[in-house]
């Protein structure tokens, strides 16, 4: 059966995910070492050890994401995170920075290493480079690839692949995007945040709801209609007219959609993918439980060659469109 890798932003979410049928849960420490560095989220060292024990007792594994890029002059914080994850009994650590991976491979030779999506290893050369240099055992593939490309990649590499199937969708190559720091000074790579809530402001102006990021208007909807969170790449912008075309106003990069690749699970299985990943460490434990249950049913159906259960997650994507993203080539 394909392995289901599920998010946990809190110990309660970890327990909920395990109880709902997650094979594996991933989480991070409560600091800038992980890419979901949000207030009130993530694990202390003690909570991680308890989470690992809870998961192990129920046959599940825990991965620790240490997937931001260590700050120059401040690497010790990241090195300590790797050591503590190892100590706590994590099944593997999920890393993105070559320097940190080199450190982990040398200082913790028996620790299993996964390559984070933030490393943006988008072709077999990059993946094989990490595998050969550091003994990486699994790569989380960027969300810029089609199913055909994933199939081709799996033919040329020897390590496991993990792909995102549900939740937030990065439309830029992950780990290679500075849009957030352009507008706010804070970035996923350096600070573990993208379009951070600390820089968001909602306001009602002249009968419209406006959402701003860093003072810049990102969404405007008529009063009464919900205004989406102002994530930059899903914002509404205007490209003024040029001599070849009229002005365009709209979601120039991507609509405020989320990823749902449920229907592609059988194809991903055929493509040789080992594990399916659900995004959402910032989500509630109720959400996590519901998504995990649905996807556990889906991977079990895929294992039996049964059709994918339809509409499983309609409720969770309600009010927000879902897309299969780059997995379908037409997205490009």
């Amino acid at each position: 059966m394909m392995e289901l890798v599920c998010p946990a932003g809190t110990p309660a979410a970890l327990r909920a995910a395990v109880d709902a049928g997650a094979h594996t849960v991933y989480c991070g420490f409560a600091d800038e070492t992980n890419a979901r560095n949000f207030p009130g989220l993530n694990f202390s060292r003690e909570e991680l050890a308890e989470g690992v024990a809870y998961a192990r007792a129920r046959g599940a594994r825990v991965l620790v994401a240490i997937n931001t890029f260590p700050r120059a002059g401040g690497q010790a914080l990241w090195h300590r995170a790797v050591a503590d994850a190892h100590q706590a009994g994590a099944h593997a650590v999920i890393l993105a920075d070559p320097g940190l991976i080199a450190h982990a491979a040398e200082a913790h030779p028996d620790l299993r290493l996964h390559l984070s999506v933030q490393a943006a290893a988008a072709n077999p050369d990059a993946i094989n480079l990490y595998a050969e240099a550091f003994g990486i055992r699994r790569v989380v593939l960027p969300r810029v690839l089609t199913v055909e490309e994933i199939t081709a990649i799996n033919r040329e590499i020897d390590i496991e692949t993990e792909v995102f199937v549900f939740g937030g969708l990065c439309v830029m190559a992950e780990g290679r995007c500075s849009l957030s720091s352009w507008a706010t000074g804070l970035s996923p790579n350096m600070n573990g945040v993208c379009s951070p809530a600390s820089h968001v402001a909602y306001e009602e102006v002249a009968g419209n709801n406006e959402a701003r990021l860093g003072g810049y208007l990102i969404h405007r909807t008529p009063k009464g209609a919900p205004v989406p969170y102002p994530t930059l790449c899903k914002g509404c912008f205007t490209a003024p007219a040029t001599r070849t075309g009229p002005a365009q106003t709209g979601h120039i990069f991507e609509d405020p959609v989320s990823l749902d690749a449920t229907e592609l699970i059988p194809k991903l299985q055929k493509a040789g993918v080992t594990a399916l990943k659900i995004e959402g460490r910032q989500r509630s434990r109720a959400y996590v439980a519901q998504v995990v249950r649905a996807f556990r049913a889906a991977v079990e159906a895929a294992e039996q060659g049964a059709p994918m259960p339809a509409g499983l997650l309609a409720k969770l994507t309600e009010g927000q469109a879902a897309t299969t993203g780059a997995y379908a080539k037409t997205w490009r």
Partner: protein
Amino acid sequence: MDLTIGPIAFFWTAETVSDFYRRMATTPARRVVIGEWVCSKRLPFWQQEIPGAIETLLAAGKEVALSTLALITLKRERRQTEELFGAGLPVEIADLGALKHLPEGAAFQVGPTVNVYNEGTLEWLARKGATRICLPPELPLASVEVLARAGAAAGVAIEVWGHGRAPLAISGRCYHARLHDRAKDSCLFVCGEDPDGREVQTLDGHDFLTVNGVQTMGHAHTTVAGQIAELVQAGVVSLRLSPQAGDFAGVVDVYHHLTEGMPAPGALAQLRARMPGARFADGFLAGAPGLRGAG
């Protein structure tokens, strides 16, 4: 401190490219990085100009390096990357995966779209043979200082993003084509219509971003004109200047004067004169939002 002219980010005609490098050969820049950086579909339209441009630049005493693509996915792109390493010139990697093709023991350079955020990564690259690294544009000065020291210790020359629209993101999707309701595979090379990229504003009319095919850049031109002294003090040895349409040789001259001690206000005034209507930003190096206005 010297000057490095980065690869052309935009889709220019073969003739424009060849004129551009003829002109760059006469500037005070020390080195030039040349090659398709953004979209492999563009390359067949101008690659025939590359050998001549290299010849002109070398004859003018410039150092020349070849750039890889910033996002390598297709088989054809991987093959092209491998071929670059056999061309007899230093290669600047713009995607870490390119290192897989590095011939044993060969030296290489690292471009600003490779994530070098700390000493650990710098030292790993140095061990692999890196001799020069242009740091990612979003790094604050505090990081640049640490990395320049680490670079000096490891024998790696450290360069920073000195001037031009900063590369902020790269995608599998072409946003330029999308603006014309086309997909990447049927783009009809529409990015060629916008020699400095296509402007993107916020809904209330603020200049914000620039779409350049699969690449997204800042709208304001990042400049370190006001931060030269700090960069020299930190041990940064070169400024990367990113090509754009218009009087780019004039822009190179301004930075040359800056490295020779011209005060920032005068330099910014000269830049404004050479780039009418342009806005300048200097936030990244200050640890502020990157688009923060300069001067």
